[in-house]
């Protein structure tokens, strides 16, 4: 085994006390090759601790950034889902007027507007009359229009011309709306 190869394992061994009478390191005019290697290894040992610390700090900063951006992405997704749910949830609207139609509301009634396959459907459930629209307000306007049209059509019919559904619709509609005088 060469001397050089022996030196490589020195940093990992406990340093032995120099024998009495041997010159101390600082007393040597010229540090021997194996000793110089030992010094470099000691410096490295010190530096490596610092490097590990720096690496740890960098890593924790990176982890923090990753977590933060993950949370930001999650928050954005939640916001999108919330607004989608708000859009999808049905809304209840009280109809107090049928303007511009020449009809008046005797008793305000509720219409439910809901989203169905990217369309809005407004329904007056008491009479089972519905209308569609590309927007909420269009669906509501269409509902008012259909209510008036259906009411006019049903009002002109004799009793024996109407089946059970339309008969009931006419009765209920008469409670809620009438033609303006």
């Amino acid at each position, binding site marked *: 085994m060469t001397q050089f190869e022996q030196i490589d394992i020195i940093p990992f061994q406990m340093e032995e006390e120099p024998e009495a009478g041997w010159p101390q390191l600082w007393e040597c005019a010229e540090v021997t090759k194996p000793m110089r290697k030992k010094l470099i290894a000691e410096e490295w040992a010190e530096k490596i601790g610092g490097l590990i610390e720096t690496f740890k700090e960098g890593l924790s900063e990176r982890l923090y950034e990753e977590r933060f951006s993950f949370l930001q992405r999650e928050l954005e997704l939640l916001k999108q889902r919330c607004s989608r749910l708000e859009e999808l949830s049905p809304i209840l609207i009280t109809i107090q007027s049928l303007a511009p139609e020449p009809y008046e509301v005797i008793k305000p009634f509720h219409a439910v507007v809901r989203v169905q*396959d990217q369309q809005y*459907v407004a329904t007056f459930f008491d009479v089972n009359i*519905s209308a*569609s629209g590309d927007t909420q307000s269009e669906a509501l306007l269409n509902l008012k229009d259909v209510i*008036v*049209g259906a009411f006019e059509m049903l009002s002109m019919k004799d009793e024996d011309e109407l089946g059970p559904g339309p008969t009931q619709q006419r009765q209920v509609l008469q409670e809620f709306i009438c033609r303006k005088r």
Partner: protein
Amino acid sequence: MAIITKELALEILKKLKGKVERQTKRHDIASVYHEGKMIAHFGIRRGSRKDLGHDHIPEQIFLRPREARLLAQCPLTREDWIKIISEKGKV
């Protein structure tokens, strides 16, 4: 895209042998008769777009959207429809 488009709504009207009885500013009001009595009616939106949404029609003819689509696209006949709504007490 709506389940029932204007194109399908017109098919349903034809299939049920309905007729347009009244016209409003925004709709043609169509009604369907059985044995001389009106049993259902629904509005067909004015406009030239074939894809205009008519998803309100299924509930007005007492069907689920999928059934209404079948009615428009052939497998379900007027007689089948009469049978379905009779069971629901709508005739």
